[in-house]
């Protein structure tokens, strides 16, 4: 049994909860810092990254989230969640949580009318993942420890750095739970490693 939280300050929380529900997974909607304590993994959902960061600061989530990542607990960010996890942001001095060694450009495709869906190959998951991009960010560069899981037209859209996963699209908006299952597997793997140490 693993316990996975979805950070619920703002955004598409319910969709992530639905995508995570599976045998052996307990899903928690996280609104308070204390709830982070007994989690095995955490999802940072899509939403508005500016809004989420403000609420993260307001409720003192910033340091506890960084500590959560430092403790080696798995995290999975989609869209705004990916922006929060990036070490560097194009045009900004600092990143937010700086969990994954990557440089991210916000709203990289343009405005909402440029939002789209496309079928993608995602390494280790499948070659037919329907990816929904909504005012999506792009990963412009990654550090050497970062594994590229997927590209769209030559640009990086999904990555993994050890137990940290991030993608610029929204697997939670489709009925296909394979990306979430992949994250659940990472969480299970990480938890069993910790138990064996």
């Amino acid at each position, binding site marked *: 049994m693993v316990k996975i939280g979805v950070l*619920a*300050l*703002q*955004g*598409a*929380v*319910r*969709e992530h909860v639905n995508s995570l529900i599976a045998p052996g997974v307990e899903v928690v909607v996280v*609104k308070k810092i204390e709830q982070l304590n007994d989690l095995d993994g955490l999802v940072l959902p*899509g*939403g*508005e990254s*500016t*809004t989420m960061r*403000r*609420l993260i600061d*307001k409720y003192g989530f910033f340091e506890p989230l960084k500590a959560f990542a430092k403790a080696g607990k798995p995290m999975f960010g989609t*869209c*705004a969640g990916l922006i929060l996890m990036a070490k560097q942001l194009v045009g900004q001095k600092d990143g937010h949580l700086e969990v994954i060694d990557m440089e991210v450009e*916000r*709203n990289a495709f*343009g*405005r*909402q*009318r*440029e*939002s*789209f*869906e*496309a*079928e993608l190959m995602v390494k280790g998951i499948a070659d037919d993942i329907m990816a*929904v*991009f*909504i*005012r999506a960010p792009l990963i412009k560069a990654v550090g050497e420890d970062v594994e590229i899981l997927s590209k769209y037209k030559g640009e990086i859209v999904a990555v993994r750095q050890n137990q940290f996963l991030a993608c610029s699209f*929204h697997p939670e*908006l*489709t009925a296909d739970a394979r990306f979430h299952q992949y994250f659940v597997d990472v969480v299970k793997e990480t938890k069993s490693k910790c138990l064996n140490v």
Partner: protein
Amino acid sequence: MVNTGTDRVKRGMAEMQKGGVIMDVINAEQAKIAEEAGAVAVMALERVPSDIRAAGGVARMADPTIMEEVMGAVSIPVMAKCRIGHIVEARILEAMGVDYIDESEVLTPADEVYHLYKRDFTVPFVCGARDIGEAARRIGEGASMIRTKGEPGTGNIVEAVRHMRMMQSQIRKILGMSTDELMTEAKNTGAPFEVLLQIKEAGKLPVVNFAAGGVATPADAALMMQLGADGVFVGSGIFKSDNPEKFARAIVEATTHFEDYELIANLSKGLGTAMKGIEISSLDPSERMQERGW
């Protein structure tokens, strides 16, 4: 295979706004205050609803300069309003790159019979509704987001509450119906049968449903969330209050933590005066914006 403007992309955009506050702004400076306060989007307007009400006359789409200015000032999505049925205003907003269009009763309708066929557009639309029939008709036309109409520009929450309660109770009724009862319900409510079927299957509206039209305080915003809204539009409430920055922040927080009453008590302290507000019964029926559209 790459597709823009699909249902998933348009409705998904609204899903990302959930739990958030969308604020009316009339210039770049207000837009920045809204973004800084944690708004998930701004609605760029020439005048907020209470000023539209006061000014009278015909209210139209705002000057494109205002949308441009606001889009240049913030990185959160920018919405704008067009008149009900005004195909060209909608196309202009789409061409400008506005992220979401509100086909809104706050402006003077351009067409008293037909709403826009919103499926023809790549840009998503939000529309007002007072009950499930109206919501379902707009969804049938292609709206990707619904909001209660309430009574805009009054600072009086009573109509938004009426509309949200009505929709929620009608949804509960549909969920309790057997499928063979749905066609009669479609006839009685004027809702397209297919949308009722989607509601029954999904257990909820197939699109996000926000509250709008009268939210003036943090407690109002939290009330609408408690009644089942996915998020809140605040029109005149913020920039017609004494201290817009503080008000904007407080409304954002009350929306996030709508069940944390101690927190809402704290953030309601010393906010200054909310907008003045209008008693609905003092409005002549012809002054009620919610009666516009069908």
